């Protein structure tokens, strides 16, 4: 049984509370939506990510009060190259939403969420460590898993699996 095709039409998805809230705030912040395999994805403009998360957290209809995960996908050699992926969970509503931000490879930087959720600290450090995406406003943006003097960012697609020899 093949999965149902993904819905990417914003008109069909604008009733979803998170999409509705973001559209009501700033339609330019929503660059795209996708509903696929029962999971909601919202592509958010780079400069709006912190405010969008703050809105979704405070809005009672959404109440996405828990940051589950921050990670990144490298689409090399396509541009924009990086997708920073945030998974939010609403503990009261038992719902999830995925926020995505696309970043160009040349100056991959995005605002840190540590002021909203201090727990973003380690996750953002991990993304910085393995992808080289910088988080502005992060209190301690240092490598976390790799040694401090490591060269290169191992999870980038142009980094060989066996490492540089």
């Amino acid at each position: 049984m093949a999965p149902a095709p993904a819905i990417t039409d914003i008109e069909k998805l604008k009733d979803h509370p998170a999409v509705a809230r973001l559209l009501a705030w700033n339609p330019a912040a929503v660059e795209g939506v996708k509903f696929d395999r029962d999971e909601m994805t919202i592509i958010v403009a780079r400069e709006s990510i912190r405010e969008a998360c703050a809105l979704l957290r405070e809005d009672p209809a959404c109440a996405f009060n828990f940051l589950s995960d921050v990670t990144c996908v490298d689409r090399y050699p396509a541009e924009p190259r990086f997708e920073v992926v945030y998974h939010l969970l609403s503990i009261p509503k038992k719902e999830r939403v995925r926020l995505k931000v696309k970043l160009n490879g040349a100056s991959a930087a995005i605002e840190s969420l540590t002021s909203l959720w201090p727990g973003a600290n380690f996750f953002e450090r991990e993304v910085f460590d393995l992808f080289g995406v910088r988080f502005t406003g992060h209190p301690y943006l240092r490598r976390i898993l790799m040694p401090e003097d490591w060269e290169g960012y191992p999870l980038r697609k142009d980094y060989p699996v066996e490492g540089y020899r």
Partner: protein
Amino acid sequence: MAHLTPTPVLEPAQDRTMILNMGPQHPSTHGVLRVLLEIDGETVVRIMPDIGYLHTGIEKTCEAKFYQQVVPLTDRIDYLCPMTNNLCYVLAVEKLLGLEIPPKAQWMRVLMNELTRINSHLVWLGTHALDIGAMTVFLYCFREREIILKLFEAISGQRMMTSYFRVGGVALEPPLGFFDRVRKFSDIFPGRVDEYENLLTGNPIWKMRTKGVATLTAEDAIALGATGPTLRGSGVDIDLRRDMPYSGYENFKFKVPVSQDGDVYARYLCRVQELRESIEIVKQAVAGMPEGPIKADAPHVVLPDREKMKTQMEALIYHFKIITEGFAVPEGEVYQAVESPRGEMGYYIVSDGTAKPYRVHMRAACFANLQVLEKMCVGRLLADVVAAIGSIDIVLGEIDR
């Protein structure tokens, strides 16, 4: 040889404080956690966990493997609950594929998953008590853990790195007499939990070392991304098995233990109650085990039976194709989370339509849970750091991946 210099280095901020290095080979850091502590006398002023000693680049390795070859890697992330990781990964891939899993496979998964939770909690209880100075509990816990490991060996051939769950079902039919052994274990186990509780729950020394120690408020726990018993010990009532059920958990009746105090004792009580609840789920799973196949009807994904492969041309071709070129997974992305013994274990898998995952990310519960250490320890005594680390039940394999 710059790698030999431990980094980062903390400098004392005041004249009266000093830096204490704990780990990475300290017995109470449960593996290779290094903690840098700035202390003023015996009071902790600053605490900084240093991780990465066990980093093996599993996420990168996954990108070079076929989907079915990733399963054994997932065991090695969290070596105390291999099946939980297996489950989370296979559920994510099955969601990408849109596979229907037969009921018996789902129930087998729940059964094994709960045994894994008991196994993991037993190691936690034993080592946590050992850290605080109650040595005997360790021996009792490992006595019961041995029974579970023998069950794992009977069903999968391995004591620890089981890889028992496969995309589309489980690897093998359980051997003859397996359910009787599980039933026997589930009959004796509640009595054994009473034994542990007799040793600890009312013990005045245990209470002095754990009550009011390393407290964490619900707001802090949520803000710092804590999950599992660390979150429930602070009074937040969420359990993914009940609230966002997967693999047929909606068919089981169990309570979710929550405690309001947010201290080491509260987290201890939550986990011990979870032992009792898990064994109830095990009993229900054995009693209601459905009949039927243990693998999905999807020949392009699931390996055929050995017997069929030897007698039927078609099965042989499928077998050859799956082994040599894997199976293609439709394009897309999923985030699948399960309730691991330590909290929310999540797999984020991106597929580009080929037979190898484009990106696999593991959201490890301990990785986020470790961040609460600062809130728990700063301003408190050095000896309580050991109790705090024990109470969040860290597994470094999962943190470092």
